């Protein structure tokens, strides 16, 4: 996500400087060796032993987990308190690529990241960087949300949605947006050749218009139609442009809009979020353990915590959808208020695979500018 990318270079320098100052004590290799190769808590001797080993390590390194991103702040504090672990947080605003770069550059040192939270394009391009690990809740995570060997497990995500100022009328299909009432009012969050949210918006438009995620040309044609009738707005939507009314209709993540709804309600504007039935185009972040984690027990304990009700509910409170949400709802362990606050969806989630995303990106590189463009 672009937000994560913004401060990369400056933060990287700062993190490097800070990193040099923190002389972390060497991890006790003997006591943790069993965890370095454990593919589940059971394989390593059980959850209790894992907790004890992590407490013994006493610290762990995380990277690119900003406190205001999907409510990571609450998770980090909760974990540190529960296991008496000192959390070394590096480069909070770094990108997914920065996380992989740090693992490569710091390999073999005690400062290397223990766990990652990665966007899919980067996650799947670096499969040899992770240790396979299946959390205790593994069997309850839907198959679409996990890499079968446990190298990557989806953690939280959301769906593409249309957010709009309801004073313009009610939207019940994407075709509504072609009406004259929406002239110059429909924006997409980012150029799809550049930003993930924009790319997912095109997938979303494809599926909603009878196409599928194997072929984004339907979506591109839809945006071309929007452009041709003069409804497509060539402005990047931001919280500021939404608040000022410049971008009254946006294609964006549903979880980016939870805050908008609240903020605009205070101004007397009803901001609605529309997801058509059976058009659930989503993307999830991926959790992974560094294969060279200097604190292997805490890295695994961290994942166990993230997939426990405490971790999952914290993400939920941040407006995103944790992978275990439906399971927890059945079991009754979910935060009901936060779960009810999520936009309602009907249908089976479709998550573009890496091949599909890469195929779509290639198509968009060649066709997007001509479709929405510009001449």
């Amino acid at each position: 996500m672009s937000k994560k990318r913004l401060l990369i270079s400056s933060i990287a320098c700062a993190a490097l400087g800070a990193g040099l100052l923190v002389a972390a004590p060497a991890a006790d290799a003997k006591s943790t060796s069993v965890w370095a190769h454990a593919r589940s808590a059971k394989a390593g001797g059980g959850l209790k032993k894992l907790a004890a080993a992590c407490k013994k390590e006493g610290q762990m390194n995380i990277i690119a987990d900003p406190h205001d991103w999907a409510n990571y702040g609450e998770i980090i504090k909760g974990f540190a308190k529960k296991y008496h672990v000192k959390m070394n947080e590096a480069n909070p605003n770094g990108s997914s690529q920065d996380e992989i770069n740090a693992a490569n550059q710091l390999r073999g040192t005690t400062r290397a990241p223990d766990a990652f939270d990665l966007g899919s394009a980067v996650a799947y391009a670096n499969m040899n960087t992770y240790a396979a690990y299946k959390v205790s809740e593994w069997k309850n995570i839907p198959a679409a949300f996990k890499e079968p060997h446990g190298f990557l497990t989806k953690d939280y995500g959301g769906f593409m949605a249309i957010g709009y100022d309801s004073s313009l009328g009610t939207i019940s299909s994407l075709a509504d947006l072609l009406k004259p009432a929406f002239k110059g009012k429909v924006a997409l969050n980012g150029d799809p050749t550049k930003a993930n949210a924009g790319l997912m918006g095109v997938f979303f438009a494809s599926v909603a218009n009878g196409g599928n995620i194997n072929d984004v040309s339907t979506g591109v044609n839809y945006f071309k139609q929007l452009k041709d009738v003069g409804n497509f707005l060539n402005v990047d939507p931001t919280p500021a442009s939404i608040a000022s009314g410049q971008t009254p209709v946006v294609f964006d993540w549903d979880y980016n809009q939870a805050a908008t709804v609240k903020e605009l309600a205070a101004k007397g504007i009803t901001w609605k979020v529309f997801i058509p039935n059976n058009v659930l185009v989503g993307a999830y972040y991926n959790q992974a353990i560094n294969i060279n984690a200097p604190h292997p027990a805490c890295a695994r304990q961290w994942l166990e915590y993230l997939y426990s009700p405490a971790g999952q509910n914290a993400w939920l409170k941040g407006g995103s959808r944790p992978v275990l949400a439906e399971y927890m709802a059945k079991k009754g362990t979910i935060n009901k208020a936060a779960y009810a606050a999520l936009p309602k969806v009907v249908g089976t989630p479709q998550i573009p695979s890496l091949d599909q995303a890469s195929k779509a990106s290639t198509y968009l590189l060649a066709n997007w500018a001509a479709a929405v463009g510009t001449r």
Partner: protein
Amino acid sequence: MTSSVQEKGTGSALRGAGPLRWRRHSAYLGVLPFGILVLVFLVWPTYSVVTGAFQNSHGSFELHTVKAVFTDPGHITAFKNSIEISAITALVGAILGSLFAWAVATGKPDGLLRRTTLSASGVLAQFGGVMLTFAFLATFGFNGFVTTFLASQFPNSFLAHPDWLYGFLGLCVVYTFFQIPLMFLVFLPAIDNLKPQWREASSNLGGTTLEYWRRIGIPVLIPSFLGSALLLFANSFSAYATAASLISQGSIITPLEISTAMSSETGVANASTAKALGLGMVIVVGVVMTLYTLMRRRVSKWEQ
């Protein structure tokens, strides 16, 4: 040996005195900071762009990216757009700017009009990027005040439908906004250079105004005019921030394509594509600047 003389300059006044080597090199000391600047901010980046264009992501030599950039229809369209926009805005800017310069030059040499327009142009020639985009959006954008006014009063008028602003035509109009004052600044000295004596000589020999312009004024000004137009071309060709803040969808010009190639998070980012596109731009600007230098040579004949 008098130290007061020694401090004055290159040391040539003190032949044979003081260490020879120091005197020979001290002359270059003054340009050293400039040399370092050029090395760090011009030579090194150019070298890095040129070599990077021929390397793949593992650092080994390959021609593939450069070939792709110069044959792919998308990249070619972007180059074509870039060159067309630059040519159009350079031409429009050059014509309007030179007419304004001529109008101002006929006024008092240190009159109020001249002083005001000169300083205003100095500011407006640098008025680009986000600020300029904002000015146009607030005026002619979807929620711009001209647009909203016309949409309610004259819904069928051209300006009531602001699609034009976010594309080729919009870029041309917005770029021209900083091209005109730049032309004014660089062309005014050329018009000032037209010596009144030439005009008098022409009149004395029985030449009419038309003949003066046809045979003396325009031939003398043409190299300056074309040279300035080339400068305008390069100015517009390399502009990025204005286009980036105006057009958020679809990279229609090369600088926007470079940005996509560098920072895309959808898996299509490729540093060597960015550098190959950069190489293409370096070549275009190289051609333009060579022409500009040739023009300057012609111009300097009349500037003595």
